[in-house]
């Protein structure tokens, strides 16, 4: 159990409303791009692991593992998908990490994808809502915007977090996405426009919320030995951790923190032998902007209740001490559910390889990605290093 696990190549499709492309098209695109980027021969890939939440409901296609192996012409290798709601992508990365670290596989392709725009908005919302506690939350009408609105209100009540602070997260993430050619919204948004956008669930506005997106992302992961054969710039996974919490929000001691994030991020730092100060670039799971603020506190780059203030101080901007969501985050890069956890890793790899043109964090040595499911019932944390 001492093998290091490396990422030898990454690929990502454009995120957005991809009306002209099917789930097959974007899966193939991300898969081919990560294979080309790594330089690996197709025959050297031992297995495929896919992160996807609900292709069955969104597109009518399941059994994505066999689909990907078939379409990629990768023969008879094992291939399967894993589901952990919005953390499905992170779960797929972690499955591959464990398989390679254990020695079961030497090189794997990890894919994350979701095609959400082929169904009506109502169907898309219902499909996303099944990631909540359906009997206690979803069935009663508590959509994710509604649940996060409860968290935001409570955070405002307990700590004085303001609507402007919620909006500044959007402003920052859009400014970053303006330099990300794969992002859904490659344009800055002024604060006053965010503050004027319509309410979805008071106090959450349209521009505090991640969009419905299509997209796919892929990684070639392998042993250190294999990675050194393939590339001069392997990126290593220094830690991969996962934790769970109650599925329903109302069963938690506090709804202004995510215990799963606290546990998994602390454990990841411990396993990597690092402290937060060692982390130069961070991808957080801003499905709603309040989520980014809460996770900033949970991973320890802001004191409890001071996440909004720390955003105001510019600490999480590029050039700040802890740049968060240089890709644009879920808000502006887009949030094709199963692709998100993999896309976060793709962004960290670009950053650590110094290839994030226009949004590069200078001298970043290590990065952290936090990928959560639901309102934090699942949290998967990866720490990457050069």
């Amino acid at each position, binding site marked *: 159990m001492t093998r290091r696990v490396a990422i030898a190549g990454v690929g990502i499709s454009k995120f957005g*409303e991809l*009306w*002209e492309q099917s789930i097959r098209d974007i899966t193939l695109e991300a898969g081919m791009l990560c294979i080309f980027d790594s330089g690996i021969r197709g025959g050297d890939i031992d297995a495929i692991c896919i992160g996807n939440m609900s292709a069955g409901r969104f597109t009518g296609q399941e059994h994505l593992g066999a689909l990907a192996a078939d379409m990629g012409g990768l023969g008879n290798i094992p291939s399967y998908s894993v589901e952990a709601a919005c953390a499905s992508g992170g779960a797929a990365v972690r499955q591959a990490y464990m398989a390679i670290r254990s020695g079961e596989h030497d090189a794997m392709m990890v894919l994350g994808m979701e095609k959400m*725009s082929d169904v009506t908005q109502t169907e898309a919302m219902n499909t996303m809502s099944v990631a909540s506690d359906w009997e206690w939350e979803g069935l009663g009408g508590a959509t994710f915007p509604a649940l996060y609105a409860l968290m935001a209100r409570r955070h405002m009540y307990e700590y004085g977090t303001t609507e402007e602070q919620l909006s500044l997260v959007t402003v920052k993430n859009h400014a970053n996405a303006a330099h990300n050619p794969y992002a859904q919204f490659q344009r800055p948004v002024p604060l006053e426009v965010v503050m004027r956008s*319509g*309410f979805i669930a008071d106090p959450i506005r349209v521009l505090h919320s991640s969009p419905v997106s299509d997209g796919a992302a892929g990684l070639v992961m392998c042993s250190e030995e294999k990675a050194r054969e393939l590339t001069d710039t392997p990126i290593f996974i220094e830690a991969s951790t996962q934790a769970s919490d109650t599925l329903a929000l109302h069963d938690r001691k506090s709804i202004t923190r995510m215990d799963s994030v606290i546990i998994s991020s602390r454990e990841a730092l411990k396993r990597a032998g690092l402290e937060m100060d060692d982390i130069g670039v961070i991808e957080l799971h801003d499905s709603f902007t309040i989520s980014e603020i809460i996770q900033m506190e949970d991973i320890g780059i802001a004191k409890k209740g001071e996440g909004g203030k720390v955003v105001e101080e510019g600490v999480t901007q590029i050039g700040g001490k802890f740049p968060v969501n240089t890709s644009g985050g879920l808000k502006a890069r887009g949030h094709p559910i199963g692709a998100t956890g993999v896309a976060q890793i793709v962004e960290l790899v670009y950053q650590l390889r110094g290839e994030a043109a226009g949004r590069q964090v200078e001298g970043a040595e290590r990065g952290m990605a936090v990928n959560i499911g639901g309102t934090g019932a699942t949290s998967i944390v990866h720490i990457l290093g050069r």
Partner: protein
Amino acid sequence: MVGIVGYGVYVPRYRIKTADIANVWGADPNIGKALGVFEKSVPGPDEDVATISVEAARNAIKYGKVDATKIGAVYVGSESHPYAVKPTGTIVAEAIGCTADITCADYEFACKAGTAAIQTCMGLVKSGMVELGLAIGSDTAQGRPGDALEYSAAAGGVAIIVGDKKPVATIEDTVSYTTDTPDFWRREGEDFPSHGARFTGEPAYFRHVGEGAKSLLRKTNTTVDDYDYFVFHMPNGKFPLSMGGQLRIPPEKLEDGLVVRSIGNTYSASAMMGLARILDIAEPGSKIFMVSYGSGAGSDAFVIKVEKEIEKHRGEVPTVDDYIERKTYVDYSVYAKYRRKIVALG
């Protein structure tokens, strides 16, 4: 040259404010500003596409000073024909005094059936098959209660008489752009249309209007600078402005045609209503660039030049503005009654 020898419009008297609709559904009362639609026209309980078309056609005949017996073709474009089987066109033709020696049909292509009728009439006139052709775009559009469409689906009609003798405006050229794009539809027997929400935007409206416009600019070897006015189909007040932005058209060139703000989307009459408003005010010599859009999907683009002849015809019939200003507000309950949305009434 083939052109418009007469045109007439009709907009029902009743209006409902979009803020009142928003109030019923608990939506943002500022929706008018967000959509660019502040009021929409509502047909009275005894109005339908046949009556609206007749009113508009009568205005067109009077405006053009034409003899209705010289009309050889009548086409009515609509997505709310009163009958599924039985033409509206025959009702209109008899009501306005056409002879029986005409060709006639109803058209349906979502919101662009009226401009398709113009193109058909142009062909018939140019080929010499008819002397005058009557093309009508008319609708009493449906919106499911609570659906986004309810804020804009309105009623109105525009009739255009196409001929080649002394036109008030010549139609210099036209092209179309057509694909199979299912963005908006209503199946047989259904009361209300369905739509693909955001899919109705970029891959539907913007692609087809944009490509139609670019195609006609290429064909005529002209640029945006060669035109004084632009009219695009107006599903709301935002789409045409945003289309204009994409084509780098100065907003003031779109302003005069934006009737959607005060009467809503009159569907098959929408782009034609914008054109009519411009014909009401434009100086002879002005050049107008119009692109209609029909879901399903396609666009018809036209280059139209206003002729000096127009000055001899103005003042004969009510203008678009006359109809816009002639209004009686109704609240949502009266609107629901007029639009037969109260199920218990049958």
